[in-house]
């Protein structure tokens, strides 16, 4: 499916940015995954050392193999799900609106839209050692209505995103209200 179809792109609309979270924010999940898949190896060596006859019986051997296989497959699905949650979170900025797509697990998704001319305030927040070194952070977009806002989480180059949003919102306001 193309992006234009996903956001029902209008004829005059031009996609300016397609933003996702910085790849470095996925690194901790990679390490967690590596830790999880190394656990059965440790358990195997422990069981072999403490209960050496446990795996001699064919019934327990088959049970152990199938349980380990199931454990690995479950960990793959969980890792893949985590990737989908990370990768399918995106913010699409056009010359007319912002579309915020948030994937919440496998069976829930939240989509918000905000017209650019309604933007009152754009704030960037770069917080932490890795955020500073790798130039990623949060961009909070607020409107005049206090209960409507969009947060771009951990996007790369948040200051450039902020500047572009302000520029685009000015242009969109000129288009809607003239002057």
């Amino acid at each position, binding site marked *: *499916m*193309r*992006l234009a*179809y*996903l956001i029902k792109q209008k004829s005059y609309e031009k996609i300016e940015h397609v933003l996702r979270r910085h790849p470095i924010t996925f690194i901790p999940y990679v390490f967690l995954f590596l830790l999880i898949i190394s656990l059965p190896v440790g358990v195997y060596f422990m069981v072999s050392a403490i209960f050496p006859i446990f795996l001699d019986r*064919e*019934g327990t*051997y*088959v*049970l152990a*193999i*199938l349980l380990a*296989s*199931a454990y*690995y*497959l*479950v960990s*793959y*699905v969980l*890792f*893949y*799900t985590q*990737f*989908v949650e990370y*990768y*399918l979170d*995106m913010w699409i900025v056009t010359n007319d609106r912002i579309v915020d*797509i948030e*994937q919440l697990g*496998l*069976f829930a*998704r939240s989509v918000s839209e905000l017209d650019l001319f309604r933007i009152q305030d754009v704030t960037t927040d770069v917080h932490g050692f890795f955020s500073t070194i790798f130039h990623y952070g949060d961009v909070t977009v607020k409107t005049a209505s206090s209960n409507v806002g969009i947060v771009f989480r951990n996007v790369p180059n948040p200051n450039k995103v902020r500047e572009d949003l302000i520029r685009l919102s000015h242009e969109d306001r000129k288009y809607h209200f003239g002057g």
Partner: protein
Amino acid sequence: MEIPLYIILFLYFVFLSVFASFYLVIAYHIATSASFTLASFFMSFFIFAITILTLYGTMELLTGVDFQQSLFTLDLSLFSPR
């Protein structure tokens, strides 16, 4: 009553079908959210490859096992009235 070893194998196949359905749901999400890019392709390929490797390893380790043998025996006489 003897419980044969292939019962665990059937349970494992049921689990595999659930796993496959999750995999298909994830692939569907990637396809329908305009996220089929190089990154998602490589991740999907990686997950698919390690899944195949795991299943192959499982099959290799279980080669030569006699699944007709009994896992354990249930003594039903314990539950019958005297």
